[in-house]
């Protein structure tokens, strides 16, 4: 049974998520603010944390930063009603393993939780779009930067076009495992990539 912790400042939303998760997922706790969330997650060590992007007391990324070092095995799945690229990319950079929008269906959410709990990133077409956008705005002149390989770009584009991993694999004549490894590598590059570049990217678009 997957143990899930919900962090969201909207009570009704937490209730709704809890109800939609069904019996095969164990909700071990809820929090509505950064401070208490970090405390309780450290104490209960769930498999997956459903994390709202915007929280009182700082963004969701502070929760990840507060927990990640002590408990790197806790996976974070970002949930957001916001479509602001910088917010979402910020969470992924901090270590979230995926991003889904709040209008996701309960079945899709369950599937996403299972993927994240299994150590796989969860990609929505929208997140793939955000990431392509992010990487396309990194300066090509900077040698420190890990840029996307042609294959990684292709994979991201297919996901942005609504392809599943299986469909993308068929399209590119490679295995699903290879697709998964490309996706993980994109996440890794993003999490390691130069903070200044991303900040500048966000500043240029007036996102922060």
């Amino acid at each position, binding site marked *: 049974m997957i143990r899930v912790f919900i962090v969201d400042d909207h009570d009704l939303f937490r209730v709704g998520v809890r109800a939609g998760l069904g019996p095969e997922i164990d909700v071990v706790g809820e929090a509505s603010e950064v401070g208490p969330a970090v405390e309780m997650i450290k104490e209960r060590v769930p498999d997956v944390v459903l994390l709202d992007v915007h929280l009182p007391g700082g963004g969701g990324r502070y929760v990840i930063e507060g927990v990640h070092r002590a408990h790197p095995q806790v996976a974070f799945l970002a949930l957001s009603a916001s479509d602001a690229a910088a917010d979402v990319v910020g969470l992924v950079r901090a270590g979230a393993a995926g991003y889904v929008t709040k209008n996701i269906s309960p079945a899709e959410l369950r599937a996403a939780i299972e993927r994240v709990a299994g150590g796989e990133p969860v990609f929505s*077409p929208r997140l793939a779009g955000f990431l392509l956008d992010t990487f396309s705005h990194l300066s090509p002149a900077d040698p420190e930067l890990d840029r996307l390989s042609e294959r990684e770009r292709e994979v991201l584009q297919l996901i942005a076009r609504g392809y599943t991993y299986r469909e993308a694999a068929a399209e590119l004549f490679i295995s699903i495992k290879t697709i998964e490894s490309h996706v993980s590598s994109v996440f890794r590059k993003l999490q390691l990539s130069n903070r200044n570049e991303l900040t500048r990217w966000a500043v240029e678009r007036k996102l922060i």
Partner: protein
Amino acid sequence: MLEERKQFGPPVAFTIRRIAGGARLIGLAWMMVLVMVALARDAMGRPGVGWVLVGLSAVWAVVAAIDQVRDRPADPWWITSGDAGLAAFALVAPEIAGSSDLFYGGFPGIAVVAAAARQRSVGWVVAALLSVVTIARFQIADVSQALAQLSALVTYGMLAAIVGWAVHVIYRTDDARRRAEDQQARAEEKATLAAHLHDSVLQTLALVQREASDSTRVAALARRQEQELRGWLYGSSDGQAAGLARSLELAASELEEAYGGKVEVVAVGDTPVEGSAKAILAAGREGMLNALKHSGTNRIDVYLEVLAQNIKLFVRDRGVGFNRVAVPADRAGIRDSIEGRIRAVGGKVEIRSPSGQGTELRIEVPR
């Protein structure tokens, strides 16, 4: 690092400071001319003092003028102190120089004006200081100059009073005016917001109540309203035309509302809706419409990518697939609305429909 930080203050403060600065320069020039005249007439026992005063005045004129260029709402302390110090020195200079001419002209008065323009009380302080200096000199001085000095005393007081009061009134009026404007602007903003919410959200809520039984329709209405509100809150303001990405999203939500279903638009990059972008928008709309109407599914993925050289658009569904041959010849949708438009701008269209895997429309146009 070169950082020019503008200090805050009402616009009128900057104007007042500029006027005071101009007056200061006139006063300094006036004083320099008088000193030169006294020097030329050999009216000074010690002409060195006159030269010192001219030099100080020139330096001070340059320094004050340079500071004037920096946009401040008020003179800094060192400018006011400098004015007062130089004025005090100018007042006693004729005495020290052993001059029969009083060559300070209007500068002490203008120092009072500049101080009063800064703040009423500061004006009084400088006026009092210069009066003390004048009185101190008054007791030692030649009686023939007494009248001029007495009138100077009165002048400082009057200048401090009049300028201080005038500036005070100007500030108060300006403040009241801006407060009224602020209030009006806020009221207008509130009215615009109310009007917008009424036209959009309240209308949608009314529709939702009326059609509460039709869940697909309610979901589509809610989704469209959400996108519209999001665009209004975070997107481009009404003045600017929406870009290609936003236009595509709007087209998608219109179609969602009209036909039911969910169209997920993902866009990377953006461009104004002109030329080939216009064609791809129209063709993309047609593609989404076809998918919603004929594919048999209600979930469509749309991906837009704006690159340096070209624009790519993908419309994908997982429906029944599409067989070109089976489409009646009189149906012009694909041929005219999509291929015709795209060919006209030098682009290409590909429709892929492997059996059992839905359909993907791929469009690419040069920018």
